[in-house]
């Protein structure tokens, strides 16, 4: 990967990276043992054995996903779930309990000592009785089986203090969508009729902040808000002291276009995000851009590659929490089966089909972010037949990954030079095929 006038070498499977000049790069290509030893690359021929693996054999779900409802009490400008006008039914209480019990009986023993449940929507707390029932069922079963219950929820925070306190008391992590101070929050995430949402979400954020739960603020950045990201970060960190902040770039939808919201320029986003992440750390807040976590290697970015079982209000079990219409539009079938009072009825064929979706297109296989980003969302980024050119998600991810690796190398001067050079950013973000193919390595294994 070209970084200014040097080259960034990244070998995540052997935990080695270096910023080298052209001469050293050539020595690496030639297999110079002295250089390889100095750079920690002598184990590269065994790297394939170190690749994180996808699940095999019987299902190995990392968590149970519950969608208590597809309904929502907001009208967010960029929502792709169509939740505001959703007319479907909430999940019956008995189904929620049955799903938790089936998950506990079938899978928990094989997954360690944790019974983990994640809530998705719509807005999960648009069906609060379902959430409460599932939480207590899980705690009851965990007590019986000697397991540790763990709960996480992606939520909008638009409910009363009593509901917020329940979540703060019972959840380990609350992932609260909160895009910034009033003007940004109300622009991005209004209530129906365009009414402001800031006061309600801020009240919930305060309750979560003071509760035992870890507050994770999920900040969606648009073209309109990217220039204000530092102010947003300072505001959210100082007012609510979250444990984590997750930064995401707005993904264009018909709804966001109709609202006049556009995704940020990927380079503007990456630079703003980098600065904001440094600021968040100064407040003791852990910042995350999920596709560029250079401290981790993974085989899959999302539930699809992790055998996760996501239960819809009807009892349908899928590998993804997005709307079925979204994956069907991509020609994908992410359904796995059903759950009812008799337990999970899963199709082995369906499971293998979903697992098979974790292969990567060429643009990803040769990318230095491969083992961190893993192609991002399988429905929106690396679906079958997706273009092989880098898109904006790729560009910002490549830049943020590079910045993260330079940070690891403590190359602070290079970081600042890179952030000031548009041409260097464009060059590295657009560099196709980062893989180094020296003659001394068997590259067939990486095809």
């Amino acid at each position: 990967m070209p970084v200014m006038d040097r080259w960034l070498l990244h070998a995540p499977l052997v935990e080695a990276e270096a910023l080298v000049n052209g001469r050293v790069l050539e020595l690496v290509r030639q297999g110079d043992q002295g250089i390889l030893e100095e750079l920690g690359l002598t184990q590269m021929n065994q790297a394939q054995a170190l690749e994180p693996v996808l699940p095999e054999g019987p299902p190995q779900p990392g968590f149970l996903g519950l969608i208590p409802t597809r309904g929502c009490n907001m009208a967010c400008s960029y929502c792709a779930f169509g939740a505001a006008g959703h007319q479907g039914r909430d999940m019956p209480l008995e189904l929620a309990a049955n799903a938790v019990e089936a998950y506990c009986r079938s899978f928990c023993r094989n997954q360690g000592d944790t019974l983990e449940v994640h809530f998705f929507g719509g807005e999960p707390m648009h069906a609060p009785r379902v959430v409460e029932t599932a939480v207590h069922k899980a705690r009851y079963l965990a007590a019986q089986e000697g397991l540790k219950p763990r709960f996480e929820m992606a939520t909008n925070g638009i409910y009363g203090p009593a509901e917020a306190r329940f979540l703060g008391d019972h959840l380990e992590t609350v992932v609260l969508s909160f895009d910034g101070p009033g003007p940004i929050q109300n622009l991005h995430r209004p209530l129906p009729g365009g009414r402001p949402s800031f006061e309600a979400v801020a009240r919930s954020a305060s309750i979560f902040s003071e509760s035992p739960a870890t507050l994770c603020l999920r900040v969606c950045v648009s073209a309109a808000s990217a220039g204000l990201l530092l102010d947003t970060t300072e505001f959210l960190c100082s007012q609510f002291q979250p444990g984590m902040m997750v930064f995401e770039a707005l993904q264009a939808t018909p709804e966001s276009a109709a609202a006049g919201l556009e995704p940020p320029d990927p380079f503007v986003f990456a630079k703003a995000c980098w600065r904001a992440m440094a600021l968040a750390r100064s407040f003791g807040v852990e910042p995350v851009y999920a596709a560029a976590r250079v401290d981790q290697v993974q085989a899959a970015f999302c539930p699809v590659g992790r055998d996760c079982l996501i239960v819809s209000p009807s009892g349908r079990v899928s590998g993804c929490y997005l709307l079925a219409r979204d994956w069907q539009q991509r020609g994908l079938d992410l359904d796995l089966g059903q759950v009812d009072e008799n337990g999970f009825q899963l199709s082995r064929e369906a499971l293998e089909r979903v697992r098979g979706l974790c292969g990567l297109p060429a643009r990803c296989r040769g990318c230095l972010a491969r083992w961190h980003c893993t192609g991002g969302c399988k429905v929106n980024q690396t679906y079958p037949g997706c273009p092989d050119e880098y898109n904006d998600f790729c560009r910002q991810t490549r830049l943020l990954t590079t910045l993260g690796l330079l940070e690891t190398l403590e190359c602070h001067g290079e970081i600042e030079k890179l952030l000031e050079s548009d041409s260097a950013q464009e060059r590295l973000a657009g560099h196709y095929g980062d893989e180094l193919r020296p003659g001394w390595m068997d590259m067939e294994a990486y095809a």
Partner: protein
Amino acid sequence: MPEPKTANPRPAPGLAWAVETHGIRLVDHARGHGRFIAYPEAALWDLLTRRRSRETLTRQMAAVCGRELSETEQWIETLLDSWLDQGLLEKA
């Protein structure tokens, strides 16, 4: 005016409680002692103190415990009476 038949009792004054991994920890400041409420009773305590109606409590606890509604209704009645007798609850 007579109280509604299904009016729920409320926690006695001086009681504090906290959610723990496998139950609810009660602290009785007035009497200077504590106790642990295990599941499934802990679920009833948690939902009762969050002011769920009797009807909602019954539906939720039936799902949590995997019991029929009528059986659950009786179980709740018995347990609430016990907590009243123990001074953990007082009548609304």
